[in-house]
């Protein structure tokens, strides 16, 4: 159990700034996810916390103690790697017990802990195999087990699910959450997959190009994204962004763009007439009207994608292809004329220059 704090941490590789001025506090027992596209500095952040990479500037505190310069082996942390990094020449049993052995624990104690971790992960019958005799999912469990055995104060996981096939990934995701709920240990989890970030985390930190964009609970980030990057990153299919200008309408300010007009959300006094904005619309917030004639946002369906539980339809609007989530029973078909409406309080407005949210 441990808290973690990054204090103005930066990491430079030559001229590349992999992480810029990161300040982030992770509470004791929290499941914190660092998410962002590939190359945004997530792994670098995790490696600095682990003690595998040095910080270029700033300070990292674990349990309010500065750990700069402390070797990884002394930080009392466990880490799961994307490639699993199982020791190929050791059996599963030896892989699990290796850290304890290095730390000089007694054989009997090691055996007991290994057995307990193996039972917890359902890999007890694999203990005498070598890593190459395991399937991807089994290797993944062994990698987790190797971390569990340590009973560390902090778990670090770097894209642990990325090498699994889609089905197994979803299954392991749920198991991971149950496991760490039980352990009540602080977890820092890195992924590029927004679904993993949304489903697993207590809180999420979204990275882009080495800079944290927003930190919060998954639903806070989803409902109130701080900028277009966060808004576009979370959610699948992603939010559609339309360019519009604030205009006067019969019932108050409108957001008018190329071929559409939508009622502006409250509070409206922030909006100046003629102000350009970016309008963000989530697929599930759209109300489809079959009565397209004279509708302020009229278009026609170009594509229908049945997903099973829902159906996503796409239609051109404002120069973009807008994604619309509908019921699975929908009878919408390509070519059907529709009108698009969004409840004003479900619209997200952003500054076209900075990308920052205008809602806050």
């Amino acid at each position, binding site marked *: 159990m441990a808290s973690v*704090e*990054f*204090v*103005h941490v930066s990491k430079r590789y030559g001229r590349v700034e992999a992480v810029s001025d990161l*300040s982030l*506090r992770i509470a004791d027992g929290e499941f914190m996810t660092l998410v962002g596209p590939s190359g945004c500095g997530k792994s670098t952040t995790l490696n600095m916390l682990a003690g595998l990479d*040095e910080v270029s500037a700033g*300070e990292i*505190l674990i349990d*309010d*103690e*500065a750990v*700069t*310069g*402390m*070797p990884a082996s002394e930080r009392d942390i466990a880490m799961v790697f994307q490639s699993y990094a199982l020791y190929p020449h050791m059996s599963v049993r030896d892989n699990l017990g290796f850290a304890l052995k290095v730390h000089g624990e007694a054989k009997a104690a090691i055996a007991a802990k290994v057995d307990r971790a193996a039972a917890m992960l359902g890999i007890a019958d694999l203990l005498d195999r070598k890593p190459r005799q395991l399937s991807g999912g089994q290797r993944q469990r062994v990698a987790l087990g190797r971390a569990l055995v340590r009973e560390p104060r902090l778990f670090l996981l770097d894209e642990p699910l990325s090498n699994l096939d889609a089905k197994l990934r979803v299954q392991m995701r749920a198991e991971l959450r149950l496991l760490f709920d039980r352990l009540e240990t602080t977890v820092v989890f890195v992924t590029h997959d927004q679904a993993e970030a949304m489903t697993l985390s207590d809180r999420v930190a979204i990275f882009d190009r080495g800079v944290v964009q927003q930190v919060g609970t998954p639903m806070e980030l989803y409902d109130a994204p701080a900028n277009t990057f966060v808004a576009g990153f979370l959610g699948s299919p992603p939010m559609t962004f339309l360019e519009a200008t604030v205009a006067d309408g019969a019932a108050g300010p409108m957001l008018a763009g190329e071929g559409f007009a939508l009622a502006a959300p409250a509070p409206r006094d922030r909006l100046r007439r003629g102000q350009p904005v970016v309008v963000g619309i989530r697929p599930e917030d759209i109300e489809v009207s079959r009565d397209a004639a004279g509708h302020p946002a009229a278009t026609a369906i170009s594509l229908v994608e049945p997903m099973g539980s829902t159906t996503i339809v796409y239609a051109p609007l404002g120069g973009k292809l807008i994604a619309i989530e509908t019921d699975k029973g929908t009878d919408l078909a390509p070519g059907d004329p529709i009108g698009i409406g969004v409840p004003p309080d479900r619209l997200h407005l952003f500054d076209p220059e900075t990308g920052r949210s205008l809602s806050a």
Partner: protein
Amino acid sequence: MATSTTTLAAPTTAPVVRRRRRRLRDAPTFALFLLPAVAFLALTSVYPLLYTLRLSFHEWFLNRPGTAPAWVGLGSYQATIGDQVFRTSALNTVVFATGTVAAELLLGLALALAVSREGAGIRVVRSVLLVPMIMTPVVVGVLWRILLFDDGLINYLLQAVGLPRILWFVDPRWAFLGVMLVDVWQWTPFVLIVLTAAIAALPSEPFRAAQIDGASRWQVFRYLTLPMLAPVLLVTGLLRFMDAIKVFDTIYVLTNGGPGYATEMLSSYIYKQGLRYFNVGGAAAASWLFLAVVVALSVVIVKARARASRTAAV
């Protein structure tokens, strides 16, 4: 443990106690790992090399007891460069290395193509073809001395196909060809091994595509196999060249540089200068002239390797 009073979310900009030194904990281990090898090489290669350099500016004959090295500046270099035998040796070495390496690359490539297809017995074939390069060079020299003997097996075989006998160790030209023949016999296997591995590592997709495109066997070789092997051929050729210019053992046993100076190479020249005529200064000067060429070539090799790996990475 160092302490920090930083608390909670508002991050401080205040300097916190650092412990940079502990980061370097692996450093002493790595230093211990590296030091023995570096020290060993410094003593066994750098020091003798510098010693040679020093001697090359002196005149000193080991067989004149009581004499000490006498400074002659560049005298030894002048004498060496002016020595007809040195120049012959240098030329011989270059011709020898160029000729043998070219032959080895050609033969090695042909053989590698022949044995690269898996099949019954091909493993055994590959093992057998390896033998010459593992055999002790001195033994190779002795063996070929026997084979090339006037009444020996090779002359017998030449006669059998209607050719005249060759006096391998009497005629300077044939002697030179003879030592080249032995080197080719000995080292073609190296080229063969490297190319076989390189061919096995080629991606199969381009060949499948060429098959679909209906390319002929020659076209496949000319436009796929050869260009893809080119970097490896280059590096292998350079590595072989570096070894070929150092040839000593087989020459020592086969011809000892003779007849006359027909097969004298730089290595045997230096050896004789130093350990037969005890002309230490001359041997040292020749050594450094030799070294200069080798170092220049090494730089070329390093560059070629880098380029080859870049090409291969594309």
